[in-house]
């Protein structure tokens, strides 16, 4: 990845990552981490939110959500997610603040007291810009937030190619009786609306979902489900689904575990292509970037029978 380090402006970096800018090696890691905020761009880094449990009971229920942008799913091996776009919605629809956060080098964590019974949604969403342009004939690249783009890329940039990705990463947690207030669509970007309650998922049982793009059914959208534990299992066991005309898809959960669901629009080069001797998907040069990309991920816990 040819990324000019000078375009890695502090405004788009986690403060904790800044001190590592000296090393070229780490620069490339940071660059990769940023790129991963745009999963549609076919990078291996995966953004995830991992709740300590999707169902918490007891007198004083708390949940801890770890987040990471990692090479290996749910492994703490790279960097945590920024919490700028964190939105926690309570069972009554109210927006909540986390009770504590921890920003570590490789992980960001959120502690949340589940004060009211019902279902909570924890979401990290935001826009990022990827652009290439020329300035006085010199080719430049930019990756970062919309605000940083407005500040740093001059208005007179030539041959500007810009792609904005809106990504949403979320998970659901219930204490007491599950409810559905947080499952209502926002009608912005790509989102998954659970038909089967997302904290009531069991191995061997069927679950259905509806995908929406700006509130409209996302038909023929490919989505992927990967169970955690790849490190010890070896095989990925990825499940690929495609939504029907109404944007819905369903499956019978093969086993209990934490599953990472992802979808992206427009879809990348289909997985079967690029596996020959040529380029991998998304690695092709000269492909025009669509002006708008959408990405979605959710962590869903499937419990044993």
């Amino acid at each position, binding site marked *: 990845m040819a990324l000019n380090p000078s375009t890695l402006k502090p405004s788009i970096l986690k403060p904790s990552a800044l001190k590592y800018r000296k090393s070229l090696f780490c620069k490339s890691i940071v660059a990769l981490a940023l790129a991963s905020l745009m999963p549609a761009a076919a990078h291996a880094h995966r953004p995830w939110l991992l709740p300590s449990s999707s169902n918490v009971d007891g007198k004083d229920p708390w949940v801890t959500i770890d987040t990471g942008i990692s090479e290996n799913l749910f492994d703490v091996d790279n960097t945590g997610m920024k919490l700028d776009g964190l939105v926690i919605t309570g069972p009554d629809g109210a927006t909540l603040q986390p009770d504590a956060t921890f920003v570590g080098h490789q992980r960001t964590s959120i502690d949340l007291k589940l004060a009211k019974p019902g279902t909570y949604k924890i979401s990290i969403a935001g826009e990022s810009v990827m652009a290439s342009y020329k300035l006085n004939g010199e080719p430049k690249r930019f990756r970062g937030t919309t605000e940083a783009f407005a500040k740093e890329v001059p208005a007179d940039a030539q041959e500007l190619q810009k792609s904005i990705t809106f990504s949403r990463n979320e998970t659901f947690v219930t204490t007491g009786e599950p409810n559905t207030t947080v499952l209502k669509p926002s009608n912005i970007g790509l989102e998954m609306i659970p038909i089967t309650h997302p904290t009531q998922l069991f191995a061997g049982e069927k679950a259905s979902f509806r995908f929406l793009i700006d509130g409209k059914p996302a038909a023929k959208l490919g989505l*992927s489900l990967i169970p955690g534990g790849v490190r010890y299992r070896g095989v*990925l066991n990825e499940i690929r689904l495609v939504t029907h005309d109404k944007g819905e898809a369903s499956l019978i959960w093969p086993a209990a575990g934490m599953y990472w669901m992802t979808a992206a629009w427009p879809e990348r080069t289909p*997985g079967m292509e690029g596996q*020959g001797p040529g380029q991998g998907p998304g690695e092709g040069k000269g492909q025009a970037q669509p002006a708008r990309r959408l990405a979605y991920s959710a962590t869903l816990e499937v419990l044993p029978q």
Partner: protein
Amino acid sequence: MKLHHSIALSIPLLSTPAIAADLSVTVTLPQLEVAAYHRPYVALWLEGADQTVIANLQVWYDLKKRDNGGAKWLSDMRQWWRKGGRDLQLPVDGITGATRGAGAHVLDFSSAKAPLDKLPAGEYQLVVEAAREAGGREVVRVPFNWSPGASQSEPVTVNGKEEIASVSLQIK
């Protein structure tokens, strides 16, 4: 086994490859329907029956990345890495190569060249490990008997689960 016959023949004809027992290996990498596909890193090596490493045969990794950046994921081939991959100075002539895509890859290892030229007769395993960025990792072992300059063998095929479709080995 026509052992005596073969040895007798091979003495005056040492330089004739048709007689030499070469190791022919076919590694088949699967087509995977996944959201994020990167071609796998693959290592092939020889082990004794007790699983000690005898020699590296092949290491396929991303050679194109700037500043040898592709070396970063070599350790994802965890068995190969712990069994000496860690200490290997890459690239190695004749061993390292670029990653390969899905399909059957036929590799011939000549008994006239290292490491087979000095390989004593005995029981061995061919080990193939594949690790894919954003994917899984898998090891396939194919046991075989090696007698230098000796008989041919029927191909033996061991199937993998996900990251390796199959590995076939034939002495011919």
